[in-house]
């Protein structure tokens, strides 16, 4: 068994440098690596390129890093619900690269899987396809998309073992397993950290081979963006 345990978020993130490209799992605020984001804030590194489906909200998630002007560029599929983001984007302080969500997911997986490029129909005929190779398959136009790599990937799981095996819960899985595969160094924070052998080997979502560092996170807020309840009955 190969041991991956580190002390905490600060230990896991210690060599992330200003100017690094970082992938961060999560969809909205669901399944985001809260502890590591806090560590990045405290490290005061900047000039970061962040690859994340969304950009958090003003006072939570990646919004913290935006408030502190630590992010140079965001690569996302949807960045609404964030006023500071809007301000920095419109003022030109922040570069933004928007990618269709399925292409973003597949490009992360491709990077992790050693597939340098693939064809997808998503975005054909739109501004997304500008400058990209177009080819017909089965009579339908597709565009060539390339793998998306990162210096570091930071993911959040529900349970993990010290060999780096991860299990996610509910829709907090989202981009986490794909980004875990794509990082040169991947750091995982988990709600519950157990010994190897305690997780069912049939039931692991991210095999430990993709994880370089793992720690048990603390004080998860798990903020809900759109608390929507059923008033009936």
């Amino acid at each position: 068994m190969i041991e991956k345990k580190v002390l905490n978020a600060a230990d896991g993130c210690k060599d992330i440098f200003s100017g690094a490209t970082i992938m961060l799992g999560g969809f909205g605020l669901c399944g985001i690596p809260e502890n590591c984001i806090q560590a990045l804030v405290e490290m005061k590194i900047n000039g970061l390129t962040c690859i994340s489906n969304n950009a958090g909200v003003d006072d939570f998630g990646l919004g913290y890093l935006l408030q502190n002007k630590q992010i140079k560029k965001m690569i996302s599929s949807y960045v609404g619900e964030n006023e500071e983001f809007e301000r920095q984007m419109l003022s030109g302080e922040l570069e933004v690269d928007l990618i269709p969500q399925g292409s973003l997911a597949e490009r992360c997986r491709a990077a992790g899987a050693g597939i340098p490029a693939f064809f997808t129909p998503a975005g054909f005929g739109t501004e997304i396809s500008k400058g990209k190779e177009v080819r017909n398959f089965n009579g339908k136009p597709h565009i060539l998309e390339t793998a998306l790599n990162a210096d570091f990937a930071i993911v959040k799981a529900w349970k993990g073992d010290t060999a780096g095996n991860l299990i996610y819960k509910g829709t907090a899985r989202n981009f986490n397993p794909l980004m875990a595969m794509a990082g040169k160094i991947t750091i995982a924070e988990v709600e519950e950290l157990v010994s190897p052998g305690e997780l069912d080997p049939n039931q692991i979502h991210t095999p430990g081979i993709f994880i370089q560092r793992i720690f048990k996170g603390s004080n998860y807020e798990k903020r809900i963006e759109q608390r929507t309840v059923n008033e009936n009955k």
Partner: protein
Amino acid sequence: MGIDKIGIAKRIAQELRNGWYVNLGIGIPTLVANYIPDGINVEFQSENGILGMGPFPREENVDADLINAGKQTITALPGAVYFDSSMSFAMIRGKHVQLTVLGAMEVSENGDIANWKIPGKMVKGMGGAMDLVASAENIIVAMMHTNKKGESKLLENCSLPLTGVNCVKKIVTNLAVLNILPDGGFELLERAPGVTIEAIKSATKGKLIVNSSEIPEMQL
């Protein structure tokens, strides 16, 4: 004039067929889930990673780890599955989802759709919309027939940046149900209750095709 958003949702719900997997976009499309006809079993997919999505939770069952693509808290029905985003779009791109319902800012008479960007305004991003419209074989657009300025949203060509091309098959608006014909044009299939063909014509800037003087009213 015409029906309201709930009426649009109810009319679209009539398009559901037994055994279909369905992806509902944010806004009016989300409402469709409330009006599934009796005897029809469908399963809802949300692209953030759930199949078998149920209604919103009761207060005591809210789970931060269980949301839909609109970031709303949801529940899961028996037989539900969670998966990652690449698996989710494998379902969508691989045509395993039989129906996609989404909103639009503009639709052109050849089935182009624009629903993600207004030049000069803050761009929030396309989310999963470009993957959905490029992949789905059966796309229904749910929208108001005209925008807030009263201008038609059914055009010869979209003026806004496109989300996808040649993809919309059917449109349900507050005024009408329309097919997009393979060679282009909005074929009028049904009128909203009390809405005249003339009213629909004047609200449709693209080519409206009326094959019969007897266009039936929607049955809601």
